[in-house]
C-alpha cells in the first residue's frame, strides 16, 4: 500500500469532477426542480382563487335571481292593476256610449213622431176638406176655405 502520485491524480480529477458538476449538472436540474415546485404552488394558488371566484359568482347569481323575481312580481302586479284600470275605463266608455246612442235614438224617435204628426195634420186637413165637400155636396172654394181648414188642422 504505497502513497504515491495517484493521490494527486485523484485530487485533481476530483476537483475537475466537482467543478463540472457545479457548472453543468447541478444548476439546470435544481432550476428545473425549483421551477416545478413554483409551478405547483402557482397552480394550487390559482385553484384556490378560482374556487373563491366561483363562490362569489354563485352568490351573485342567487342575488340577481332573487332581484329579478321581485321585479317580475312587481311588473305583474302593475300589469294587473293596469288591466283592471283599462277594463274599468272600457266599462265606463261603453256605458257612456250606450247612453249617448240611446239618447240619439230617442231624439230621432221624437223627431219622427213630430214629423208624423205634422204629416197627419196636413193629411187631416185634406181629408176634412174632402169630407166637408162630400157632406156639402158642393164644391167649396178651396182658396176661400183653406184658411179655415188650416186653422182647424192646427187645432187638431
Amino acid at each position, binding site marked *: 500500500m504505497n502513497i504515491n*502520485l495517484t*493521490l494527486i491524480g485523484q485530487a485533481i480529477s476530483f476537483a475537475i469532477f466537482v467543478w463540472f458538476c457545479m457548472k453543468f*449538472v*447541478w444548476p439546470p*436540474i435544481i432550476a428545473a426542480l425549483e421551477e416545478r415546485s413554483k409551478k405547483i404552488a402557482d397552480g394550487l394558488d390559482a385553484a384556490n382563487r378560482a374556487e373563491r371566484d366561483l363562490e362569489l359568482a354563485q352568490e351573485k347569481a342567487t342575488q340577481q335571481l332573487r332581484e329579478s323575481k321581485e321585479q317580475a312580481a312587481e311588473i305583474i302586479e302593475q300589469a294587473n292593476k293596469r288591466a283592471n284600470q283599462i277594463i274599468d275605463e272600457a266599462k265606463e266608455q261603453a256605458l257612456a256610449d250606450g247612453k249617448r246612442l240611446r239618447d240619439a235614438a230617442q231624439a230621432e224617435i221624437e223627431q219622427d213622431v213630430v214629423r208624423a204628426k205634422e204629416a197627419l195634420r196636413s193629411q187631416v186637413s185634406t181629408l176634412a176638406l174632402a169630407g166637408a165637400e162630400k157632406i156639402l155636396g158642393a164644391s167649396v172654394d178651396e182658396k176661400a176655405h183653406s184658411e179655415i181648414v188650416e186653422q182647424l188642422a192646427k187645432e187638431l
Partner: protein
Amino acid sequence: MASENLTASSYIQHHLQNLTYGQHPDGTWGIAHGAEEAAAMGFWAIHLDTMLFSIGLGILFLWLFRKAAKKVSVDTPSGLQNFVEMMVEFVDQSVKETFHGKNKVIAPLALTIFVWVFLMNLMDLVPVDFLPHLATLLGVPYFRVVPTTDLNATLGMSISVFILIVYYSIKVKGVSGFVGELTLQPFGKWMIPFNLLLEGVGLLAKPVSLALRLFGNLYAGELIFILIAILPWGIQWALSVPWAIFHILVIVLQAFIFMMLTIVYLSMAHEDH
C-alpha cells in the same frame, strides 16, 4: 489466477497489487511487478488501474447526469431525469438540513462525492476475478478494479475536502479567526500550545478519518470477497451471495457517510464557535 503455480497467499497478494507505473530504481520506466518493486518506485509512481476506474466512473457519472440535465423538463420528466432528480433532491435535502449558510459549491460537491464514491464502491460487487482475469488475458499483469480500496484515492478526496475546510475557514473567519479557533480554545489564551495540539489533532483527524473509514471498509470487503474466491468453486456462492447482499448496504452507507461528513465539516468551517 495469473500463473499456474498458484498458492492462496500469492493469489491474495496478486489481487491486492495495483498496476503501478513508475521509475524502477535502475532508472527505467515501466510497470512494477510485485509489491517490492512498486514500493521501490517511491512517491513518483501512479496506479494506472485506480486512475482508469476512478476517472472512468467519474466520467460515467457526469455523462449520465449531464445527459439528464441537458434535456431537463419541468413538466414531463423522463425515467433518467426522475432518477437524477431523486439523487439531486436527496443530496440537496441532506445539505440543507446540515448546512445553513450560502455556498454554491457544497451541494454539487456533495452530489459528486456521493455518486462517484458509490460508483467506485459498486465495482466491489463485480466478481473479483472477472476483470483482473480479462486484463491478464490482454497482457496486463495486475488489475484492481475498486478504486476506493486504494488509499491514494480516498486520501486524494479527503485531502481535497481538507483544503476546502481550511479555505472556507479562512474565507469566512479570516486568518486571525481561524488561527484563534485553533489556539484560543478550549482553554483560553494561557494554554495556547495545549490548545493548538488539541485542535490541530482534531483538524488533521478529519481528512485522515474520512479517508481511512472509506478505505478500511472497502478494503476489508474486497479482502473477504478474495478470501471467498479461494474456496472451492461449488460453495463460493453460499458465502459470496450473502456477503454481496450485505455489501450493497455497506457501499451505499459508506458513500453517504463520506458525503455527510464532508457537509458537516464544511458547515463547521462556516460557523463560529
